[in-house]
Each structure stands twice: as structure tokens, then as C-alpha cells.
């Protein structure tokens, strides 16, 4: 992670010094601020385990549920058309255990439940190094733009065995025993993924100091796999056994893709200098 930070820092410094011919907005080329991203939680549960449509998991469906992502950013305009930005996104969500167990666990345990009860929590951090290109006649950081850049998604999952568990029949012994499976691996698990962000927006300036952006962003790989995620048919997932030991690993990325797939955002920033 430290290496990433150093790279980002170097890129930003290079951007700032590479082209002092940039107009900026009223001469200001650097801004920092906060962005609020949101999207409707149609199928996956949000942080409150709510979903709009639901996929037969444990989430409270039929409610007005939204994914919420908080984002901090720093942007520099090295030219009048281009801007380089670095952002860090933070979000909380949940997986409502909508995915069915697929096979027996080692051939001896039969799950009585189709899937674990409850949900597990996900906290995600995404790091994006992005480039904004401003449309004809606009001047970075003001105006209409498109943006893109690589994303590193990191996510931490936690589950509560009292909430997330499944009933199973253990045939390994002499007699079949009914067991309450609560072991889904370590309570806290870390995962990583990569993606490509693409988006478009419009930035306005208030009192020549405050920036107000609005637009949308997508994670392209999430978008491509979106249709499969929606119906729970993520490519490759059915060829692999899903049991309590890998349940989280098999489901967390799909949920994270759901959060990042498409968001509208509103950004508030300050033009620093």
C-alpha cells in the first residue's frame, strides 16, 4: 500500500510541475474535497441489510434502499484540458446471504438450509488514480468532463456467528447429527480486486472557490459482469463448490461490484491554489 501512496504522490507532483501553462479556474489548479456517491440497492443489500427488490436472501426487501459511498479526493489540473486525480472511497455494505450452498461439504455434511441465515458486513476502500478530460471550450477544473482510471478495491468482511449460521446434517460419524454451522472462516477476512473506473460529470464553481460536481461513475468490469451478478450467475461461480468455508470468498466480490457498478455522485471541493 505504501508503494501505491508513493506512486500517487509522485504522479501528483509531476502533474503539478509538468505544465505551469495551465489556466486553471481563475488561476487555481488544485482542489480537494468530498464526494457523495449513491446508487439504488436493487438486488444486493446495503449497509442496513436492506434491498429494493431482493434475491430471496435475508435482507429486508421492498424498502427504499441505497448504496452509499463516501469519497475524498485530490485533483490537479496540469493542462487546461486534463486533470489528474486521486481518490479514496469508503463504503459499508452487507451481503444478505442470498447465494445457495452448492454442494456437500466434503461429502459428509448435508446442508439443511439452502444458504446461511443472516448476512455479513463488508467495509470497502477503493483507491483510484483517475484522469479527467474536459470537453471542448471548458477549462479544467471547470465544465463538462469524462474521467477514467484504474481502481484497486480492498474489502474487509466481518460476520457474526449468532446471525450468520446454517443447519446441516453431519454424516461423518456413526449416526447422523444435526449441526449448527457457524464457521465461515475467520470472522474478519480481507480481499482485493481491481477495476477500471469510467465516468462523466459537470463541475460548477461557486464564488470562485467552491466546486460543485455532479455526474456518474461506473466500474467497467463490474458493469460487464453486472447482468450475471444481478441474477446470481456470476461466471465461473457454479463450477466451484460453495460451502461454509468459502462462502464469503465466493460472494464478497459480487456484492462489492454491485456497490461500485454505477453511482451518481455529487462532489464538493475547495479550490486550494
Amino acid at each position, binding site marked *: 500500500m505504501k508503494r501505491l501512496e508513493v506512486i500517487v504522490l509522485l504522479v501528483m507532483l509531476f502533474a503539478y510541475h509538468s505544465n505551469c*501553462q495551465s*489556466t486553471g*479556474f*481563475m*488561476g487555481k489548479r488544485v482542489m480537494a474535497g468530498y464526494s457523495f456517491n449513491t446508487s439504488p440497492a436493487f438486488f444486493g443489500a446495503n449497509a442496513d441489510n436492506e434491498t429494493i427488490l431482493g434475491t430471496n436472501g435475508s435482507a429486508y426487501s421492498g424498502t427504499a434502499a441505497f448504496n452509499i459511498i463516501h469519497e475524498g479526493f485530490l485533483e490537479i489540473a496540469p493542462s*487546461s484540458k486534463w486533470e489528474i486525480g486521486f481518490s479514496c472511497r469508503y463504503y459499508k455494505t452487507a451481503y444478505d446471504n442470498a447465494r445457495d450452498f452448492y454442494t456437500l461439504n466434503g461429502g459428509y455434511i448435508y446442508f439443511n438450509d439452502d444458504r446461511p441465515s443472516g448476512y455479513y458486513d463488508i467495509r470497502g476502500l477503493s483507491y483510484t488514480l483517475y484522469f479527467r478530460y474536459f470537453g471542448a*471550450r*471548458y*477549462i479544467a477544473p*471547470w*465544465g463538462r468532463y469524462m474521467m477514467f482510471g484504474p481502481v484497486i478495491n480492498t474489502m474487509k468482511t466481518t460476520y457474526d456467528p449468532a446471525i450468520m449460521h446454517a443447519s446441516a446434517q453431519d454424516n461423518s460419524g456413526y449416526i447422523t447429527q444435526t449441526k449448527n454451522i457457524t464457521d465461515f472462516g475467520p470472522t474478519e477476512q480481507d480481499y482485493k480486486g481491481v477495476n477500471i473506473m469510467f465516468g462523466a460529470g459537470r463541475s*460548477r*464553481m*461557486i464564488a*470562485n472557490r467552491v466546486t460543485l460536481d455532479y455526474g456518474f461513475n461506473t466500474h467497467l468490469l463490474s458493469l460487464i459482469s453486472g447482468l450475471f451478478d444481478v441474477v446470481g450467475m456470476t461466471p465461473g461461480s457454479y463450477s466451484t463448490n460453495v460451502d461454509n468455508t468459502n462462502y464469503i470468498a465466493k460472494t464478497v466480490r459480487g456484492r462489492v461490484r454491485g456497490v461500485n457498478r454505477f453511482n451518481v455522485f455529487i462532489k464538493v471541493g475547495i479550490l486550494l491554489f
Partner: protein
Amino acid sequence: MKRTKYSLLFLIFCSSLFSQQDLAKNYSPLKSKGDLPEIFTQSIRKVVSKDITELYKSKEKDKSIKSEYITVANYEIERIVKSGNILINEEVTGYLNKIADVLLANDTALRNKLHIYALKSFVVNAHSYDKGYIFIDLGLIAQAESEAQLAYTLCHEISHYTKKHQINGYVNNEKINRENYDGKSDEEKLIKKCEYSKDQESEADTEGFRMLERSNYDFAEAEKDFDVLQYSHLPYELVEFKPEFLESKYFKIPAKYLLKEVSSIRNNSNEDDTKHTHPSTAKRKQVIKDLINGRYSNGKAKNIVGEKDFLYVRDLTRMELCRLYLIYRDYPNALYSAYIMQKKYPDNEYLAEIVSKSLFGLTLRSMGKLNYTDDSYLSGGIPGYENIESYPQQLYHLYNKMPGNEWTIMSLNYVYRAHKKFPANKQIGAFADSLFKCMGQIQWGIVDFVRVDKSAAPPKQDTVKKEEGSKSKTDLIAKIQKENNYKNYDTAYYKEVFVDLFTTDTEFTGKFPGSGLAYQSSGFSDYRSTKYNTTKRGKKSKKREFISSNHKVDKVILLEPFYLKSNPTKSDELSYITSDEKQEKLVKTINNCAQKQNFSIVTLDPGLLSSTDVGKMNDYSVVMDWFNEKYDADIRESYPILNTDDVDGLIAKYGTRYVLKMGIISYKIGLTRKRTYYYSFIYDLKTNEIVYKKYEAFRDNDSADLINAKVYQTFYELTHSK
């Protein structure tokens, strides 16, 4: 003692304000003097607000439409007053006001409400507004035959004001526009509007006549005034055009270029006036004739302020008209007007300058180096002589028939001799220099004006015959043609045009193309055929909308920025006021952005003047004249601006040769579609080039950030241009 001193100073000041020009020698273009009137310093928005408040307190009908009119009229008056075209506290305006004093000697209340100004325009017209503003075009004064005729014109305009014709006409037209008018066509609506307007004009004619009748002016002159109007399309005097003044001892214009019989003058006084705002001149004249009813105006005078004053003021306007024609690149009219005035003032330097400029302008046109556009005053180019009436036809005939190269020779002949007559006049000298260059461009040099030595001529026909056997057919033809050319050249009527100059004038010989002598130019920016060349613009510069910039621009004269905010879903009233407010903000933004980048701006904005800033108002007028001339032809070309007498002084005064024009136009199409246009142009007053150009369209509102970003970018690009 002190009082005497101050009285003396006051007298000197007054005499400096109204001291007469010696037109026999020269003429200085008309300029405003003294303090600027209140309209320059008051907030137009406050005036509109006050007027509307008063309207709503009154018991007037149609308050909504009238309130709209008040806004429109106030802004229109402000636009005219601040256009740089009205003359404040100078001779012509002073004279008009003296006539008004005579007319309204018994009605001081009305007199005090009037604001009468001469308007720098060659159009024969006058305008009246409900606020008591009356503008009389110089073209009308130049055509007047007596003071009483001008008095009648004033009476007519004053009657428009007293009868509130402007506001009533506006209300009537708006009602016709707003009401469906029983589903009638636009043409029928127009006819209905014109009927109302004609009624008003007839009323102003009658009321104006009665006002004139009450004064000591000869009321019979009112009838003659309509004759002046009838023939206002003709020059202010009809004088046979004898081009002897363009000739010299060794240069006589051949008879084939001269037109002896000119066409008759058409009489359209009885033309159909159905779609006209004014009744036909014949009808108007008849009404006045009926009012006069054969009475004799015994004891009444044609001139009360004074015939001498009238003739002097009229001559001033006629002199000014020559210049105004030049601004609109109407060179034949400028030349003819100057020709008329030269009859009276043969040694006037200004007239020689006007003739020189006109000849040069026509030379450029004949060489194909001056193109008019659809927006030009002469959008169809210089008319053919067949379309001209009476004596001016002779000038047009000469121009139409004489080949371009001969016109150039004739022009140089006149302009150079004028330069010798007025050697201190830099303008004439510069145009002479430019004509030398034109001569070079048509590939003519000294040898073309020297009689061919017989011994140096090509071999005679019998010699050619001897060589026939060894020559091809084409060689033979070429040889015969060459011999004929020698003959033609040798016998051409203009061959000896410069003989006296070649033999006695070293300056002339030195400047003549092909002389080999490097004679110094007289220092004026002469004509340069710099083309607007997009290929010269590199990829980067094209992106940045730079056209060319040989000089780093670090200071500009900022002209009043333009702002138009239009919203079809709201009334005109709101757009006027919103535009005004937005313009004020734009001025602040421009200054703010320039200041942030240490870019120097000198503001020349009639909206920001104090009462003592008459000098700035005159400077603004000079720049606007420059722009009018620039825009009258194809602006992509660096055509010479001929009216530059005051430009050099202005450049020296403000320390920059660059003028910045900036503006925003924003409007809505329907309910949701928005368009905003931003432009900024920088002109070089010396070279007539556009050195910076930015013109951009946005599908957005005219938001503050858009304006800030673009204005800042403009100055950024200027300060960072290499």
C-alpha cells in the same frame, strides 16, 4: 478684480467652445465639448424604475405595455446617447438648440423638457422620443436650404413628443401583435400599424406647422422642406462633375470616360405608401400647402438665428458628411461631397485629404483589393453608373469606365500633388506612399512613363519580313504584338502624366517603383495586403483561437462590454434590465481577471463616464468610427482604415494600440434549451488586424463560473502568448 478675471476666463472658455473653424483652410471633425449631460451619469435602471412607478401611480391605460415601452425607450435613448454619435455642446447641436429657443420662446416649460442633439449620420432623418430627446441627423442638416426648414423639422419632432406619439404608437403596435387580430396575416397587421403611424406623422406635420406658424419663421419653408425630403437620396447639392481637378498639366482624362448627358431625376413622391410608416411626400406636401392656403408669410424670416450661422453650420455638417461616407466606405459619395465643397473651399486641406482617401479607396476597389460583404453599407458594391441619377452619374461613369491601372495612375497624380501642396499632412503623404506601392503591384515602373526612344524600338516591319523565313509563326506574332505594345505605350494619354514630377521632384522619383532609390516613407501605416490565413495557424494556436500576434499584448483599451440576455418566455422589459445588470457584473469580472494577471486595461466605456469625461467620450467615438469602417468590409482582410486621423493620438494617449471587445449573448430556445456565446476580439489599431479572437458557444446558462472561466482564460492566453 477677481470677478473680472473670472469673467474673462469664462469668456475665453465660451469662445473656445464655440469658436468658428476657418473652413477656407481646414476642417476639424466635430467633437463633443463641455460637461456630459446627466444621462451619462445616472443609473438607467433607477430611471426606468422611477418612470414605471410613476406610471402605475397615474390613471393611464395599458400600463403593462406602457411599462414595457418605458424600459425599451429609456435603453434605446441611452444607446443612442452613448453610441459616440451624438454631438454634445458643439456648434451644430448648439445651433439646433438656438432654433428651439426661438421656436419655444413663449413656452419655457416645454423648452426645458427637450434635449436636442445632432447625430453623426449621413441619413436624412430625425428622431423624437417621449423623454424629450430629439436627434437630428447631420444628413438632414446638410440638405436643408434654410434655417426655417430646420425649424420646421424641429417643430415636427417636438409635436411627436408633445402628442406622445412614440408611446401611443408602441401601445398600438403591441396590441396588434398580441391580439390575434381576427386571424389576419402579418402583412395585414403591418398595414394596420402603418396606417396608425401615418396618422401620427400627419398630425405631427400639422401640429408642427402650427408651431412654426406661431413663430417668426417663414412658414412657407415647411412646404419646401418636403422637397428636400423628396430628393434626399441625392447629394446635398447637384453640381456637374467636371474631373479637371483630377487632371494636371500633362494629364488629361480622355473624353471616352466622360459622360455628357446625365439621367433625369425620378419623381416618386406619389409612390404607394400603404406599407410605409410615413405618408407619401406628395400627400404631406399637399397638406401643408392647404394649410398655407396661398397666404404670404410677410414679415417672417427664413433665418432668425442668422443666415451666416446657418450656412456655417450647414457647411460643418457637409464637411462631416464626407468623413461619414468614408467610414462606410462609400468612396464615390465621399468624393462627390468633397468635390462640391471644394467648389466653395478650394484650398481646404481636409477636403484634399478626403479626395485623396476616396481615390485610394476606389483604387483598392478597382484593383480587386477591397471587398464589400452583405453587411456592408454598400453591400452590392459600388453601383454602376446606370443606377445613379443626375450629375453624380458622371463620377460613377468615370469610375466604371476607366480601367483600374489608369485609375491608380490618376489617383497617384492627384494624391501626390496634394501631398506636395500640404506636406505637413501625414495622411495625404501616407496615401501617396500607398499608391506608389499600388503602382508597384500593377507592375508599372518608371519605364512605363518614359517616351520610347525610336532607336530602341523593335525592328520595323520590313526588317521583320526579312527574318520571316527563320522565325516560326508564333515568334512572328509575338514580335508584332510587342511592336504594337510599344506603339500603344508610347501614345497612351497618361504616358506623360508624371513628366514634370520625374524631372523636378526627387522625392517622387525616389518613391516610384523600380527607381532603385530607397526613399523614406512618410510614416503612416500604408496598405498591406495581409491575408487572413488559417493555414498559418498552427495546431496549437488554432485551438487557442489566436489568429496572429506579432506583438505581445500587455495592455488594451477595453470598450464597453456587450451583454445580451434574452428570454422569450419573459417580457422584453426583464431582458433589458437583466442584461444591464449582467453587463455591470461583466465589467467587474473583466477588471478582476485582468488585475489577477497584472494585465493593464484602460476602460473606454460610455456607461462609466463622469460629467467631465467628454474627452473619453470623443475617444470612444473615434474608436467606434474605426470599428464601423473595419466592419464595413470583409473583416478577415486587413483592409486599410482610412479614417485614422485621430487614431494615432489615441494610441499615444492610452499607451496601447490594442482594443478589446468582449461580450456575452445568452438566450433560451423554448423552455429548456439554453445557449450562451462568449466572444473576445483584440484589434490592432495600427495594422487593422485582429490579433486575438475567441468565439465560443455553450449549451449552458450564462453562469458566473462560465463567464469567469472564459474571461480569465482570455487574459491568461494574452499574458502567456509568446
